[in-house]
């Protein structure tokens, strides 16, 4: 289980996270909702140890994360597909996927996970030797998720996977998220597309200016008047 307790993060003088507490249990799909600048990505970056906490603790399976390096977080089984995809555009698709397996050393296991990612996203297999920068936006998002899966994470952090994608592509991505979850994976999903996220999530948190305003089951959030008004478009 991942748990954040009273987490405070600053960018210089800007108080980006103001005492966030949340948890993600094994096997859950939890979504983090909120408008631009609410602190959703900051929250994921804090978990991935790209940012230091001013106060509070992040624990995963009982271990305190405060002194880990980002690669050690991946070693512990948490990987992230960041907002904006951030694929290595000068590397080939195959090299990108290999980079996702940076913390793993068993060639056979890496090979079988590569097969698994190919089965999720067949288009990546076709484009294996192509430079990643030549992929379409949707394919790049698939690559970003596939790359994150190559570390064989127990917990997958996804930051705005549907951003800027055509509706059909959004369906594909969400189907894969559901599949990962059905196969026993745990997912923390940051989304602006609240309706879609709440359809597949178990629980959700609503962030506003660095604080959690609401939390509850996906069903509760879907029917909450405030959420409906602010994020589901009435």
């Amino acid at each position: 289980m991942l748990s954040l307790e009273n987490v405070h993060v600053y960018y210089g003088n800007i108080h980006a996270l103001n005492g966030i507490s949340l948890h993600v249990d094994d096997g859950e799909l939890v979504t983090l909702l909120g408008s631009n600048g609410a602190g959703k990505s900051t929250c994921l970056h804090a978990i991935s140890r790209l940012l230091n906490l001013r106060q509070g603790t992040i624990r995963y399976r009982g271990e305190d994360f405060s002194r880990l390096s980002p690669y050690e977080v991946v070693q512990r089984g948490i990987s992230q597909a960041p907002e904006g995809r951030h694929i290595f555009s000068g590397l080939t698709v195959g090299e990108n996927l290999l980079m996702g397996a940076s913390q793993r050393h068993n060639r056979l296991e890496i090979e079988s996970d590569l097969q698994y990612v190919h089965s999720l996203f067949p288009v990546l297999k076709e484009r294996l030797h192509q430079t990643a920068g030549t992929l379409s936006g949707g394919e790049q998002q698939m690559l970003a998720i596939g790359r994150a899966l190559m570390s064989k994470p127990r917990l997958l952090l996804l930051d705005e996977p549907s951003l800027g994608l055509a509706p059909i592509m959004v369906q594909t991505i969400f189907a894969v998220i559901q599949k990962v979850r059905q196969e026993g994976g745990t997912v923390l999903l940051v989304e602006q597309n609240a309706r879609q996220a709440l359809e597949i999530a178990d629980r959700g948190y609503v962030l506003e200016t660095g604080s959690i305003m609401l939390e509850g089951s996906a069903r509760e959030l879907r029917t909450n008047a405030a959420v409906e008004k602010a994020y589901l478009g009435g």
Partner: protein
Amino acid sequence: MGPVDYLLQQTMNAFSLGSIYALVAIGLAMVFGILRLINFAHGDLMMVACYSAFFLITTGIGFVATLIITIITTLLLGVLMERLAYRPVRGAPDVIMLLTSLAVSIFLENVFIMFLSPVPRSFRGVSPAFLDIVNHWGAVSVSNINLATIGITAVLFVLLLLFVTRTRLGIQMRATSEDLMAAQLVGININAVIMTAFAIGSAMAGIAGMLWAARLGKIDPLMGFIPLLKAFVAAVIGGFGSLAGAVLGAYLLGFAEIFLVGFLPPSLSSYRDAFVFVLLIIVLLVRPNGILGSSEREKV
């Protein structure tokens, strides 16, 4: 000497000079690509390598052992430099990293001036005599040191190319240089990658330093500055941060320098470096990111 021979002659000279610039520029570009750090102390690694070779050869361990120990020493110094000086300021604004590297450079130069005197020393005793032999092929004459420079550089290019395309660590280095944040998120140990970049760059600088000193025949504590400046220009012309760009820029610079001297009237040839910098300015006006540089998107 006919015009063809003259052209061949100058081409050999240009390749040799460009090779040294390339060896230095690769290290600069590798570190810049990952850290956005312009390592001013990179030229001083060349200087340290030369002094190391200068003193080791007097112990009588022989040329090969001197070479190996010197390269390892330079490599370790580069790694130490990163660990002690650059890692603590990693992530700080670019200006702070720049000033730190200037400080490391000034520190190293002055330590050598204080303890070993600023007086130049002869490097003739270090490089074996056969390197000074000049081969005469028709009207073209090429010294063994030029041949060695071109040959060694070519071998090192191939090794580096194999490293960055065939090994996991090499691909990780390219990935890190492209996107530091994504590299961390996918689990690349960037400390290991950065250390490797410094190790490779420093070893190459050490080799370049000895080749440079063998050309000039003397060494002194400030000898690293000019080749550093030239390598910097080469890397900027080629597209800073790109390894292929650094190599291309280095050879362009080598050719520009040699042929400018060849074609300019003798009264102007001492202004060679001024012309080189004019060339830099022109390239930057036409292609602000260098010849192979891509217009880098602003990182959020």
